[in-house]
């Protein structure tokens, strides 16, 4: 490449503008990369005091998160008596439950739908599913939240939670429909289109001959797809799952609306009732308390929540990249 370039610039006077263009574009690209790096540095720097005061207990359980948030916020007017004590476990646990549940449901559904689209759907059905899935991906999260609050939550409250189960947890928490279940179901609908589109790309990239080979042995198409197609596309399944997880972890608005916004850790020991218990994931905590950025200790705490999101998002994005590498080895680009 380098040699070609030198030859060109010697022989052709017109190489000048090309180099200028390359440099200009290169500089612009560097600015964008720098901006994203700056995001990491800025957010971590702003978050540091909260981590520094709590150490690893930041991630642990202990006390009521909501009381801690109130104490941190109200200590903001006096820098000397700033309180930083914060144990985020209920929020982290809520994130794990909601995102985990939604990803599991969405994964099963997406796999079946992706197989269906790639191998079995008749042409009109496929032509219908494409805009349908794009629409589901494009509906704003606040609209999902609104429908959740006004349709799903009242439905759960009126039809799914019995008076008996409400009474069984009355001393601890009030069940009113804002629940894990509502959050999981709506989040699953939100992230499924992301998964399906990556799964479909992965399944399409499976070399046709491999499938034909299996069919030629008399194995029926359904078995063939699952035993050959889905197995070959495993890296794409991982990549899609990881990206959908990142999406779910970062979802703030919808979850803040339907999850109940209570700093409570749903307890599986309560039996099946626990899926009706309210909670509040990390991202929703940031948006719920966004008015409190004016209080310095609260600000550091909120940025610490953001830093956790940023870090887990970056890790997931790296894992997704790593999962796609085996596909490249086969020369299959999904």
């Amino acid at each position: 490449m380098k040699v070609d370039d030198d030859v060109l610039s010697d022989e052709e006077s017109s190489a000048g503008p090309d180099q200028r263009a390359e440099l200009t574009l290169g500089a612009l690209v560097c600015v964008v990369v720098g901006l994203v790096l700056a995001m990491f540095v800025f957010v971590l720097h702003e978050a540091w005091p909260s981590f520094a005061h709590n150490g690893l207990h930041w991630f642990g359980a202990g006390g009521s998160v909501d009381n801690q948030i109130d104490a941190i916020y109200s200590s903001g007017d006096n820098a000397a008596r700033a309180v930083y004590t914060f144990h985020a476990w209920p929020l982290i646990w809520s994130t794990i439950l909601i995102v985990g549940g939604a990803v599991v449901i969405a994964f099963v559904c997406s796999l079946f739908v992706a197989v269906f689209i790639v191998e079995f759907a008749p042409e009109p059905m496929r032509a219908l599913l494409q805009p349908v899935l794009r629409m589901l991906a494009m509906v704003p999260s606040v609209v999902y939240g609104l429908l959740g609050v006004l349709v799903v939550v009242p439905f759960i409250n009126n039809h799914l939670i019995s008076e008996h189960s409400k009474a069984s947890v009355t001393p601890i928490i009030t069940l009113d429909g804002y629940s894990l279940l509502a959050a999981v179901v709506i989040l699953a609908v939100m992230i499924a289109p992301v998964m399906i589109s990556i799964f479909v790309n992965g399944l399409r990239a499976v070399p046709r001959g491999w499938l034909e080979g299996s069919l030629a042995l008399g194995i029926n198409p359904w078995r063939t797809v699952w035993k050959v197609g889905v197995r070959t596309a495993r890296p794409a399944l991982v990549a899609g799952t990881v990206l959908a997880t990142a999406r779910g972890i970062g979802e703030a608005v919808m979850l803040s609306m339907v999850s109940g916004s209570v700093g409570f850790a749903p307890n599986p020991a309560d039996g099946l009732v626990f899926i009706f218990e309210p909670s509040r994931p990390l991202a929703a905590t940031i948006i719920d308390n966004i008015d409190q950025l004016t209080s310095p200790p609260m600000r550091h705490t909120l940025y610490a929540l953001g830093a956790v999101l940023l870090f887990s998002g970056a890790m997931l994005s790296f894992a997704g990249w790593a999962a796609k590498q085996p596909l490249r080895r086969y020369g299959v680009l999904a």
Partner: protein
Amino acid sequence: MSTPQALAAGSLPPTAPRRNESSASWRLTDRLGLGFAWFLGLLFCVITAAIVIYLFVQGIRYLRPSLLVTNPSAGFTESQTGGFLDPLIDTVVIAVMSMAIAVPIGTAIAVWLSEFGRPPVLARIVESTVEMLAGTPSILLALFGTLLFEAPWLGFLSRTSGGVVFGRSFFAAAAMLSLLALPLVVSSVREGLQAIPSHVREASYAVGKTKTATTRRVLLPAARPSVLTGTMLGLGRVIGDTAIVVLLLGNTLTNDPSGSAPILSALRGTGSTLTSYVFYNAPTGDGDQPGKAYAAAFVLLLMVLALNVGVDIVGRRGTALRWNS
């Protein structure tokens, strides 16, 4: 680079034709599996139809023409709280502003990645940066934007009182929203550029065009459908985002300009968009006017539907242009 396009959940490329055979000879479990796949495929169609139809019904019930021409105001009943003129205008303004940033920069990055991309290390870094940007939650971009625009040297972009920069303005929100749309534009344009076969470039070089001229006169015009697709996917993301708007646009009921310069003051001031209006008026928000929220969500859904149809139309036009046939 499949990330951003995957996030858009947009294009599903066509598959090879296959023969249809009866599943009658399959084992029962296999037939049940196929039945389940059919059920799920139909379920997604039903969910989408339910969302659209329900919002249409509620929208027609609550949307009055007067809502579109009056401003929001504080109040406790449907009649006191006014309409959503300002949020509607602000949605358009914010969308135009952020796409004005995202489309040129996104196209430039895509051109650099697909036509230059040297040194390769930098290209890899840029690729993964864009991919990571696509996976970054918008709430984080909002937090980052707050830090960035509260910096004193960017104070001229928002309100300043007593040396403290407020950091919330149309400029701040549009800048951060453009970062949200950027990966979609980049991946779409890049895909379009890569779909142009190399003999087209070579033909241009052969008649003595420089790389710059080739890019500007040949490649970008040919990739116009994908620029358009990227723009619309980005727009969908921008008008649908709430976190950045709530944080960086100030989320005031009506537009609250800062300063006295005619347009600049409004852009330096705060406002709200349809998404933050819905968020505010949902039962969980401070406004709690579900009727207003439904009406605004209906308008929002109409915009998204229009974009969706637009992507479809452009996509169909784009496939009509085939280089090799």
